[in-house]
Each structure stands twice: as structure tokens, then as C-alpha cells.
């Protein structure tokens, strides 16, 4: 890594330290969840406690996902076990990318980073990781009274036609013969960054813009990480319950029920495609979500298809 880049990625005081996160979980998140989940909240939060076990913050990174991969590689080569639940954040990302070749604007003011998980989930739970990220973003935004926020399948957090938060997931196997599976869950939330490049102006918004005030970024980060901890815990906890026959694998996962609640897409006319902007495939009405998170799309002929990947764009009057 060049010296200038090394300087750039120098650690900086964390937006939310593990101790602050722990206090937030204990004082706010647990009582809030217990009201809904009862005693089960405790088990869920124990499972999710790995999230934020280590939190590193940097002034600037080219791309958090790439940095996390480099870090894992370095750890593995040094025979150091990567710490599952590590969160890496940066004030700004200079080379942020969305899916495919899309650019992602990540200047100071937003919450940009990645959660590193060493995979111990079964495939049925692991597939829901991107949904857990979207629910986390949506729930955190709700804390600021933004009731208009919805999720556009799979996990874009939208305010009307504008995107407020986006999430990426990338899985891979360690390259150094460890055989360890990793999940990198990237997050990008427009918090106080209100200026967007021209091509994004009609498609992006920020939380600060929506509430008409500056948001305390450290507090937002702690709230976001606390919700992330719970939702990741929910994946493990539900898997445990299914294995012990305390929950039915064929009924909806709690995260899917939450996605239905947060959905801004069910009943709307959409365009679908794997890369919907470059290669749209067809138009349909989003009819619902399957119990495994698949999107049910009803064609004009009445036929229903279920898509397990890809993305949608709204076609009705509200755009987006």
C-alpha cells in the first residue's frame, strides 16, 4: 500500500465504541425488543452480541469492502483468527461502488462501512443476511420519526422515490487454505450528507434532509449497530429454534414478516431485472414475498413468478 494511502487509512476515534454499543444495547435495545419478543429477546441478543465486538474507524478508505478483504487476508496469513462481528467504518469512502458498475457517493456526513462475519449460519438463514441489513436501516430511520421510509426489495431504504440507504453483501472463502467462509455486509446510509452529484439528485436523499436537522452521527451509528446486532441475532436464534423444533421452517421468518411490514413495493407495478437499470427484463406487479424472501411478481397474463435475486424499480406514479 502506498505511503499516502497508509496515511489515509490511519485509524481514527470510533463513531461508536464496543463499550458504547454494549451500553446502548443494554439500556435501549433490550427493553425495546423485550416489549415485543418477551424473554426470547435475551436469547436473540446473546446471539447477536458478536456484532461490534471490534469496531475500527478511519478518516478515509477507498472502499470498506475491499479493505475488509485485505484485512482478512492479512489476518489469515499471520495465522490470526479473523474476529467475527468486526465493524469497519470511515468518514468517507473515495472509491465507493454500488452493485455492478454503479458509483456510490460516500462523502463525510454519512455512515459508511462493513460488517465482517465468519459464517456459521446454514444456507437458509445466510440467504437472509441482505434482508437483515435492510430491516436494520429501516428500523434505525424509524427512530427519527421518518414514518414514510419503506424498503424496496431486496433491501434499499427509500423515502418516496429517493434512496436513503443501500446495502451490499459479498461472501467468499478465505484464500489462504483456511476454508473459512466470510460474509461482508456493506452499509451506506446518507445521514447528514445532503449534497449529491447531479446524476443522483433526483434519486437520493439523506436523513438530515428528511428531518430538517443535523443528526448526531455517533448516536446514529450506535443505534444502527444495536439494531444490526439484534437482526443478526434473530437469524441465529430462529435457526436454533427451527433446529430444536420450536419454530417451523416453512412459515415466515420473523425478518420476512418485518420486511412485509416495511415493504413499499407490495402491490406496486415494477420493472424487474438482474441489473434493472442496464438490462430490464419485464414489468409486473409485486404480489408479495415468499417465506424465504423471494419476490412474487404477477405478470399481466396472471402468471406469478418468484425471483430470488435481481432488483426492481417502481413504475407507478410515485416513481422510485
Amino acid at each position, binding site marked *: 500500500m502506498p505511503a499516502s494511502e497508509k496515511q489515509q487509512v490511519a485509524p481514527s476515534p470510533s463513531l461508536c465504541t464496543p463499550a458504547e454499543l454494549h451500553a446502548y444495547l443494554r439500556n435501549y435495545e433490550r427493553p425495546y425488543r423485550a416489549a415485543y419478543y418477551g424473554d426470547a429477546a435475551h436469547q436473540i441478543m446473546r446471539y447477536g452480541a458478536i456484532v461490534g465486538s471490534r469496531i475500527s474507524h478511519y478518516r478515509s478508505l477507498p472502499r470498506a469492502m475491499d479493505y475488509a478483504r485485505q484485512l482478512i487476508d492479512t489476518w489469515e496469513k499471520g495465522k490470526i483468527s479473523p474476529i467475527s462481528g468486526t465493524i469497519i467504518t470511515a468518514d468517507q469512502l473515495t472509491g465507493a461502488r454500488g452493485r455492478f458498475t454503479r458509483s456510490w457517493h460516500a462523502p463525510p456526513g454519512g455512515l459508511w462501512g462493513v460488517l465482517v462475519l465468519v459464517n456459521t449460519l446454514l444456507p437458509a438463514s445466510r440467504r437472509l443476511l*441482505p434482508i437483515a441489513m435492510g430491516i436494520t436501516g429501516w428500523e434505525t430511520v424509524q427512530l427519527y420519526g421518518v414514518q414514510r421510509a419503506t424498503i424496496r426489495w431486496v433491501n434499499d431504504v427509500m423515502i418516496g422515490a429517493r434512496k436513503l440507504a443501500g446495502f451490499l453483501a459479498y461472501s467468499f472463502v478465505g484464500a489462504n487454505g483456511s476454508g473459512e467462509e466470510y460474509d461482508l455486509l456493506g452499509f451506506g446510509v446518507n445521514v447528514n450528507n445532503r449534497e449529491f452529484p447531479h446524476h443522483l439528485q433526483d434519486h437520493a436523499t439523506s436523513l438530515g434532509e428528511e428531518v430538517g436537522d443535523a443528526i448526531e452521527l455517533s448516536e446514529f451509528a450506535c443505534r444502527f449497530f444495536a439494531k444490526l446486532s439484534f437482526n443478526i441475532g434473530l437469524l441465529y436464534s430462529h435457526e436454533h429454534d427451527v433446529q430444536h423444533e420450536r419454530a417451523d421452517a416453512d412459515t415466515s421468518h420473523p425478518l420476512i414478516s418485518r420486511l412485509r411490514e416495511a415493504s413499499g413495493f407490495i402491490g406496486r407495478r415494477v420493472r424487474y431485472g438482474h441489473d434493472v437499470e442496464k438490462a430490464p*427484463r419485464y414489468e409486473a406487479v409485486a404480489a408479495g414475498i415468499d417465506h424465504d424472501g423471494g419476490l412474487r411478481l404477477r405478470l399481466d397474463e396472471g402468471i406469478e413468478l418468484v425471483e430470488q*435475486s435481481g432488483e426492481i424499480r417502481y413504475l407507478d406514479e410515485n416513481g422510485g
Partner: protein
Amino acid sequence: MVSELFGDLEGRFVEAGQPLVVIRHPLKKKEIIENILRQILYLFQAPEKAKYFFALDIQSRIDKKGARSVIIRPGDEVLTMSLMKRDTPVFYDGREGVIHSIYFEPRVSVDKGEPLIGVCPEEKLPLIQKVITRVKAEWDARQ
């Protein structure tokens, strides 16, 4: 083509699974060759129901030279699996060989266990070509 129709069931209540009609599908030359190939090639199967794409490096080699000139080895990252907005590299774990057949389309979901590619060891390519030529010759002779 319809080869048998159970007309006696017309207007009657039938249980689920009860045969109503038998349809015969005469195989075409291409389908016969494909079925034989599936028994000869090493079939690399989809690990999960998802959409699959060739890894960038493999795709560019296919674009330049054609799939049957691309040799893959165990441990090579050959595909990307895309499921619920999560991309996962897929590593080849079969015998070294050339990508002889491609069974997936990039934008269409593939069920778990379905073949994605058929791989043939380089030294067996002439043998496979011989089989294909023979099937074609026998087919043409019977037409």
C-alpha cells in the same frame, strides 16, 4: 404427441396424480447428443437455487476464444452466484478440463443441483467428438 388419452375419465372426479393423458416427446438429434454428453462430462452443479454468471476472468476468456478453449482447474473461481443481492464466488472442484457445455443462462435462476457447466478433460475431447459424429451419422442414416 399425444399417445394415449384416458377418455373414460371425462366428467369424473379424479384424485391428484391420476394420469389423464400420455404425451410422447420424440427426442431430436441435439437432445440425444446432449443426453449422452451429460453422462460423459463432469457436471458442475449449482450449490444453491440462484442466478449464476461466469467470473470476469473466465467470461473474458470465453469471449476471446470460446468456451471450449478455456481450461479450468480445481480451485479456480469460475462463477459468481447471485442470491438475494448477495454475490458469492463459486470455485470449481472437479477435474481439470475445458468448458464443453454451458447449461445456464445468466439471467435465469438455476435450481440447486442442476448442472451449470459440463467439463471435459482435454485428452477426451477427440473421443467426445467421435461420439457426436457417430450419433449424427446414425441419425442422418435413419432419416
